[in-house]
């Protein structure tokens, strides 16, 4: 008997404004857990309106790692597009990714995830009674879709976005990124668990997976047993046109397109990621034609699945002394637009402590390197209720009416954090609450504490700014940049090439001039602020004053920085003499060898130990 569960966890699925021209109103989107073998996977199920119900469903196979982080919103737009055409959809996380259960670090992910795709197909069919499934896969997800289609007769069509045709080439690109990352970190190449696995942008690929990938080449495999396929390459990185011709030669109705938008969707920083409108429009047109050709609309009525309780997953952690945790999605906030995943400790935990993990940049609630998931589960196993959440407009939360989505510093972030704290107090009885965040998450934690949100601890990792004015954009001058590059910009300003670029209009001279002159101004400002503080005069945007105020309320303040992070100097400059005056409740830790997002496992493990130790330090 399947133990899959669902709920009416409809996160007021306001779509991103960018998706508005691609799909009509969002509709219900249910968080679900379902079985893949003995494991639990997390997913989002979207039943279509009964009047449009199609007999063909869509399962979305995500890319892996950093690409999955970047494409999170875009995949939702693909999902909405299919739903608008009457297709039930299921988007899910492979084992060991996203919000699903953990995977054995040595496992062959390629094999396990292919089985996960097949399990997702079964789950969608079970929930809806549909007979046929189209798989939409992106990058590695497209490769998995092809592998799954070969094993699963219910899969009759494929939509493949920039498919990995050669596993060997994919592995090479991962190794190159790894090599470059190691070089950027000063040539320090880190072994991963002493085997041949690699970590790319903080995401592990096991040795078994690498071996399996290296042997996988779609051009030399038997074609999948599907009738129709749409293959969309990024026009900046085409690689699947020859293979698509092979599919056609085998009798598959295969269409090939090379369109813009791939790099912007999955190969950029998540805060810059854009929904690939042309790819989505092409997908919609192809699906519409395919569905009409299949004449399946209304062929089968959807079976209702009655949600009996909120979905939840029981996790076993702890190795020799296993601890059972419960994990479940929650929607909260006045408009119920906020989405979080709560990990609860074992039953009977009497210490009522909770931690909120805030978005890092525009990464959704799993965090960079999926760090929020592993931290939440570790902390819950030691007694904390852990809530990893998306601020409004980010990740799986809805977007407030009239607001932009994908904003790293949304104006209402404080309201969202207050709502999270209130949820933990009222629904989980928490009396000791910590805020944790990296980069912009650290900024929001600080702002919340400064605004008097009732918390006991703020754990801040690599903040790059301590103030943010509404109306600023990420492209505006960052003080961190001033602090970080005091010599680089004047040098550039004096170079002949720079002048040529300047005259060609390719350089923002005002920006460089500001950077050049800001540093001494900052130092002067810091001294003046110290004087004012000494005279008990509060100046606006005074970080030192704020830190002292937070400290006096008994809030433990912890900063953790990777060495070389610009936020360190900025903290010294903006915090001034206050930083030295604060006592035991104020801690600064520096981790050698880390980068901004702690993408390497060694420094990341050190950072995680520091924040865990601080979380469990006696108050």
């Amino acid at each position, binding site marked *: 008997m399947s133990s899959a569960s669902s709920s009416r966890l409809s996160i007021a699925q306001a779509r991103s404004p960018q998706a508005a021209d691609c799909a009509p109103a969002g509709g219900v989107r249910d968080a679900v857990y379902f079985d893949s073998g003995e494991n639990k996977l997390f997913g989002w199920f979207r039943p279509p309106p009964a009047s449009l119900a199609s007999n063909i469903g869509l399962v979305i196979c995500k890319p892996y790692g950093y690409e999955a982080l970047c494409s999170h919103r875009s995949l939702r737009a693909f999902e909405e597009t299919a739903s608008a055409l009457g297709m039930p959809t299921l988007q899910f996380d492979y084992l060991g990714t996203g919000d699903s259960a953990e995977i054995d670090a040595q496992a062959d992910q390629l094999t396990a995830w292919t089985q996960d795709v097949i399990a997702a197909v079964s789950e969608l069919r079970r929930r809806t009674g549909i007979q046929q499934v189209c798989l939409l896969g992106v990058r590695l997800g497209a490769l998995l879709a092809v592998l799954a289609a070969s094993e699963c007769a219910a899969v009759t069509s494929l939509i493949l976005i920039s498919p990995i045709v050669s596993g060997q080439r994919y592995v090479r690109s991962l190794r*190159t990124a790894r090599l*470059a990352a190691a070089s950027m970190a000063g040539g320090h190449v880190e072994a991963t668990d002493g085997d041949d696995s690699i970590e790319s942008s903080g995401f592990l690929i096991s040795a078994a997976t690498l071996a399996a990938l290296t042997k996988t080449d779609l051009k030399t495999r038997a074609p999948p047993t599907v009738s129709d396929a749409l293959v969309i390459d990024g026009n900046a990185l085409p690689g699947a046109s020859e293979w698509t011709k092979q599919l056609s030669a085998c009798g598959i109705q295969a269409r090939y397109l090379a369109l813009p938008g791939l790099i912007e969707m999955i190969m950029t920083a998540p805060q810059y990621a854009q929904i690939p409108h042309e790819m989505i429009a092409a997908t919609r047109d192809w699906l519409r034609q395919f569905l009409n050709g299949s004449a399946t609309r209304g062929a089968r009525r959807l079976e209702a699945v009655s949600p009996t309780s909120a979905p939840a997953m029981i996790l076993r952690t702890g190795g020799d002394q296993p601890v059972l945790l419960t994990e479940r999605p929650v929607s909260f906030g006045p408009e119920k637009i906020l989405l979080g995943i709560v990990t609860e400790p074992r039953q009977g935990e009497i210490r009522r402590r909770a931690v909120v993990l805030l978005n890092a940049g525009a990464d959704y609630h799993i965090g960079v390197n999926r760090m929020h998931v592993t931290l939440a589960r570790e902390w819950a196993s030691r007694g904390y209720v852990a809530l990893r959440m998306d601020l409004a407009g980010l990740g799986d939360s809805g977007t407030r009416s009239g607001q932009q989505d994908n904003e790293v510093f949304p104006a209402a972030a404080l309201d969202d954090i207050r709502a999270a704290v209130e949820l933990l107090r009222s629904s989980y009885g928490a009396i000791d609450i910590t805020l944790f965040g990296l980069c912009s998450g650290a900024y929001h934690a600080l702002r919340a504490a400064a605004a008097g949100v009732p918390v006991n601890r703020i754990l801040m990792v690599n903040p790059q700014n301590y103030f943010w004015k509404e109306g600023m954009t990420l492209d505006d001058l960052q003080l961190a940049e001033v602090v970080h590059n005091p010599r680089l910009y004047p040098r550039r300003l004096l170079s002949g090439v720079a002048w040529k670029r300047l005259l060609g209009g390719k350089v923002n001279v005002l920006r460089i001039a500001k950077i050049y002159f800001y540093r001494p101004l900052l130092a002067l400002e810091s001294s003046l602020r110290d004087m004012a503080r000494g005279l008990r005069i509060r100046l606006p945007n005074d970080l030192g004053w704020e830190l002292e105020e937070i400290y006096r309320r008994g809030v433990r303040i912890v900063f953790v920085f990777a060495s070389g992070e610009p936020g360190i100097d900025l903290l010294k400059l903006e915090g001034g003499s206050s930083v030295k005056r604060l006592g035991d409740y104020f801690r600064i830790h520096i981790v050698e060898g880390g980068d901004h997002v702690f993408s390497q496992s060694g420094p990341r493990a050190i950072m995680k130990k520091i924040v865990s130790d601080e979380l469990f330090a006696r108050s």
Partner: protein
Amino acid sequence: MSVRSIVVTQFEQVAVEQHRALARLSDELRLLDSGLDSLSFALIVARLEDALGFDPFDVADDVKFPVTFGDFVRLYDNHK
């Protein structure tokens, strides 16, 4: 078009796509100071494979990532 020009074009294109401020490209420029990150370099190498037909990192032996831009160009020049 020389290998160097192709490499320069890819550096510039990827920098724009990745919203990164590219430093002036000279032989002495350390890639660490170029303004690009590891993802950018992975993209550049993939694009150069499409443009030039080979990937100098595709070797069985341990290959080191170039330190300077000049090293990077030479790696491709020598592989031709």
